[in-house]
């Protein structure tokens, strides 16, 4: 019973915090749910260049508001997600995307985790072999 209560409280807290995050976005007159979902997804994956650890969806910065407005207009104009991403990249560079394209200069970014995993695996194999030899 207590467990269930705790879980409910936790879920509620989670729900509330989620709401407070979404509040950076001003209400916009979307024509359909699809548009709204696309808007939110794009706002989440585009970085606010002023407050660089926040996405457009999180940020209250005036520039983020302008860019959200621009995003909204582009969705209304029927532009595709890729066109909108290109629009942002043409002006602010790859840095504006939280998921930049795989290219020579982003190789370490994308490959880094795999590289670290391989180093870790190699290390473990060596240690396991050494210990086994000791037995």
């Amino acid at each position, binding site marked *: 019973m207590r467990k269930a209560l705790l879980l409910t409280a936790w879920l509620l807290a989670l729900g509330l915090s989620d709401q407070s995050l979404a509040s950076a976005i001003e209400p916009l007159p979307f024509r359909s749910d699809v548009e709204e979902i696309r808007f939110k997804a794009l706002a989440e994956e585009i970085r606010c*260049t*002023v407050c660089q650890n926040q996405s457009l969806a999180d940020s209250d910065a005036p520039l983020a508001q*302008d860019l959200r407005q*621009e995003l909204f207009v582009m969705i209304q104009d029927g532009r595709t997600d890729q066109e909108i991403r290109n629009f942002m990249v043409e002006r*602010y560079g790859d840095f504006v995307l939280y998921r930049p394209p795989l290219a020579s200069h982003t190789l370490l970014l994308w490959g880094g985790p795999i590289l670290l995993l391989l180093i870790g695996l190699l290390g473990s194999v060596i240690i396991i072999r050494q210990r086994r030899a000791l037995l």
Partner: protein
Amino acid sequence: MIRLLLPLVTFVGLIGLLIIGMQTADERKLVDSPLVGRPIPNLVLPQLHQPAKTTSTADRLGEVWVLNVWGSWCQSCRIEHPYVGRLAKESGVPVVGFNWKDERDDALRWLSQFGDVWAYHMVDYEGRSAIDLGVYGAPETFLIDHRGIIRHKHIGPIDETILGDLMARIQRLQQEVGA
């Protein structure tokens, strides 16, 4: 021995990385503009002093010029103001103001207080043209060559060192005009 040294070496290495990270933090905040090396977007905007009159970024084609983004709300613009004045006076090229997300009355009051050192001002109250320029903070300073290509962008206030750098760059760009 290795067993003892390895954690120490890792630790020192990590501290080293963190120190480098701290020292380059400000630098990493600067976003390289993809617009450098590309033509300046054709923006037609009203003038600050004569709102009925518009000017375009294409008007300056054929000469080297500077576009300086500022706002009366921008603290760093106050700091760089004397250097913008020197740039306008000493560089010999037009330094055009780009009054960004401002209120007209505030901008005019700011200019009368600190001095209007710019050739004229293009006004972007809503910030839509600024997006086309990839502006993300004020002050920002663009150097545009005689073919209308953005050749350099400085983000942040101009100081003594930056002023020298900008002057040298402008001089090089002006040599290209004759060539």
